[in-house]
């Protein structure tokens, strides 16, 4: 395996598929895996493979399309293939299931590819928080805004309470829209994206509270603090982006005085403040692609995207904002190329394994929250 392909960084010494994968898939050589994947695909004509930007090369090489979560959902919606193999994390596959037709089937190579940030806002907690919150302020004054990086059930909650979804590129539009609906925004599940967005809109640190669901009362706030806040930000964050610190930006500037630092808005405020540019994955890609030859770019996002950018822009110097170990998404890693062969071969043999199916009611509501997003 070449080093530029994949960041093979695992804390785990042992493979831990533990029965999720039949033994015959153990210890395949790279060539064998490649051959089997391609052979299965040759026999399958009704399948589309979607790969997230954060996936490793040995997975994305088989993808029909690459993109960020929203691009991929859109592609899934447009695809007419009966089977959609989604190489990303659970919430994305759920979104794909929501936007595809009823006879299309969305399958994930591994059921363990679940985004830890999405897991930080479970409905049982959010429902509880909403009940508590609306005892202090009238429910009609609060509009939920939910980042698409969340489970379908949370999107459904959002629609039920008149809110909208947003992405990292349209969060400020969503906040504006929500503030037209009422006085307050209840934002889940990413506190850093919320924090960065409210600053973008000219609000400051006096205008928000953090709602920590693991606190006993009002997310760790007093009733007055909640009443005074315009934004209520859920205590959740991305494991990868949270690891970047202002010191990483300072270090990279020391080492490369002419560097451009571009980071994702899921990073901490201090990182966004000290970076040169902030933008969603597609913005980062665009910016680097259009940059002058010879320019230097330190990228503050998941390492596989950074590596792909470096590969695709050999005329520029592109590298990660901190070491590889610190910016590798463990959830995305769960999509092992062995799992991909497995689901494809099963599919070829007529077995649909690891299907993601969102409950019908939830689907309807979640779709509404996504539609609202497209209209704001």
């Amino acid at each position, binding site marked *: 395996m070449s080093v530029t392909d994949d960041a093979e960084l695992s*804390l*785990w*010494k*042992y*493979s*831990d598929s*533990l*029965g*999720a994968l039949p033994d015959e898939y153990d210890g395949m050589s790279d060539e064998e895996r490649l051959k089997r994947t391609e052979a299965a695909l040759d026999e399958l004509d009704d399948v589309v493979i979607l790969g997230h930007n954060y996936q490793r090369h040995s997975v994305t090489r088989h993808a029909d399309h690459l993109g960020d979560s929203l691009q991929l959902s859109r592609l899934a919606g447009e695809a007419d293939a009966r089977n959609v193999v989604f190489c990303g*994390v*659970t919430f994305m596959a759920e979104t794909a299931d929501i936007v595809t037709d009823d006879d299309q089937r969305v399958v994930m190579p*591994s*059921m*363990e*590819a*679940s*985004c*830890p940030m*999405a*897991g*930080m806002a*479970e409905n049982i*907690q959010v429902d509880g928080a909403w009940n508590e919150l609306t005892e202090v302020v009238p429910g009609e004054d609060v509009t939920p805004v939910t980042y698409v990086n969340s489970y379908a059930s949370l999107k459904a909650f959002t629609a039920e309470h008149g809110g909208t979804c947003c992405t990292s590129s349209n969060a400020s539009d969503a906040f504006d829209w929500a503030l037209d609906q009422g006085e307050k925004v209840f934002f889940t599940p990413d506190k850093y994206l919320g924090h960065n967005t409210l600053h973008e809109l000219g609000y400051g640190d006096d205008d928000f509270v953090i709602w*920590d*669901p*693991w*606190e006993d009362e009002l997310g760790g706030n007093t009733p007055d603090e909640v009443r005074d806040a315009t934004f209520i930000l859920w*205590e959740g964050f991305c*494991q990868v982006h*949270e*690891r970047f610190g202002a010191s990483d930006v300072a270090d990279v500037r020391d080492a490369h005085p002419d560097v451009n630092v571009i980071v994702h808005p899921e990073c901490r405020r201090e990182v966004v403040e000290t970076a040169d540019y902030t933008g969603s994955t597609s913005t980062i890609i665009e910016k680097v692609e259009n940059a002058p030859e010879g320019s230097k770019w330190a990228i503050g996002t998941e390492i596989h995207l950074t590596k792909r950018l470096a590969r695709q822009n050999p005329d520029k110097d592109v590298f990660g904002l901190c070491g590889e*170990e*610190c910016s590798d*998404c*463990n*959830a995305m890693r*769960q999509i092992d190329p062995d799992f991909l062969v497995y689901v494809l071969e099963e599919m070829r043999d007529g077995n649909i394994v690891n299907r993601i199916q969102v409950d019908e009611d939830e689907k309807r509501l979640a779709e509404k929250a996504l539609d609202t997003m497209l209209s704001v």
Partner: protein
Amino acid sequence: MRTEVLVVGSGIAGCSTAIRAANRGADVTVVTEATSPDDTNTGWAQGGVARRAPDEDAEVFIDDVLEAGGGVGDEDAVERLVREGSRAVDEFLVEEVGVGFDTNGDGFDLVREGGHSTDRILHDGDATGRAVQRALLRRLGESDARVLEGHTAVELVGDRGVDGALVADTDGEAFVVEAGATVLATGGVGDVYGRTTNPEGATGDGVALAALAGAEVSDTEYVQFHPTAHAERGFLLSEALRGEGALLVNEDGKRFMPDRHEDAELAPRDVVATAVHETNRDGQAYLDLSPVFDSTEFAEEFPTAYDNLTDEELESGRVPVAPSEHFLCGGVVVDENGRASVERLYAVGETACTGVHGANRLASTSLLEGLTWGLRAGEHAAENAHEPPAVDRESDAFNGEMPDGFVDAKFDRLQNVMWENAGPVRTEDGLREARAELQRLRGEVKSYARGRLDPELYALRNAVLVGLLIVEAALENEETVGCHRRVGTPAED
């Protein structure tokens, strides 16, 4: 740190292993989370230790164990338990360790429990485990074994086989203990269910660590539930109370056992457990102790129960009960010397699956099992443990921020899923749902545990994995056997 034999856990299985290996001249290190004798399942055992009664034909005892196990136990293993184990009780527990079991005029005071065809159980009041655990720790302290208390094994290390463990202290500092042999003696899985008779911290670490190292794990669907634990505070209200006349009633005070079984409150454990479980589905089952108050000197005969009940409960005699996770029959598959299917790895005690229990455990045989296989593993490891190889393993912990209470919230979720779907009564649909939920949860938790050396997160990671192993096994086994109860017809695919 380097050692010849690394023992993880200090219950009866870990102590027996360590004491025996040290006595055979091995350099032994015990790593244990426990900081007090009350931190182990061993310390909490009530009834006693079964051993072949004087003049008893071993076959009778063997048949009792096999029959309790639903006929699927391993006969060789049971034979070893009965013959060799019984000797070990006398020669090791009594003579070498000095446990003082209750005696009467003719020698040891022997009692009988459900499923035993004769009086053969040694005990110390109703707190046998306390005496056993304390004596073992005393003896361990006198041996040459090094004991690291309050330390947690968070990962096994090694390439082809196991060469020790990564160990964390309470401050989150971690170091590798390189070992020629590694013995997992980490006890039960109570925290996977939440409602349990086990002390806190029973997260099935050994089962999870072994599985992660590629060792075979089996029979995990056989989880024994005690029918009458306190519904809120978890402690056990022993069968003996029902033996003395305590009744099971619903919210309206109406008895629900007579309709279900001719022996009513004294029906077999799994029948009572299912009845209590189902009553609690839409209400609350109570144990009515008033008949026992009338017929006994309660405080003297049931001191443990007496101490655990509130004044109000002692007044009214009504105690809310629920089935509780009690014992894992399966676990890490081991041979007659406690060796797992991965090189240089051993498992003993509740963590191991020796084949003794089959699909259900006969009362008072688990201490005996931990003792028997502990001594064997200690002997074998001492003889075979070579100088450990140097393990090259850098610590790449970031110890990033983690919201307080996060682990608790995820444990709640795990426990709800397990209790609802993989508890005393299981359905195909429920198990499938649980599997999907747990896979998702496992994915999330792995991400959090990665790069953080917080033992609590590792405990969560292990518990989720053990939950998944229980669910997978329960799905695969469509028969109701022993303590594994499947209801409903499998859904058409």
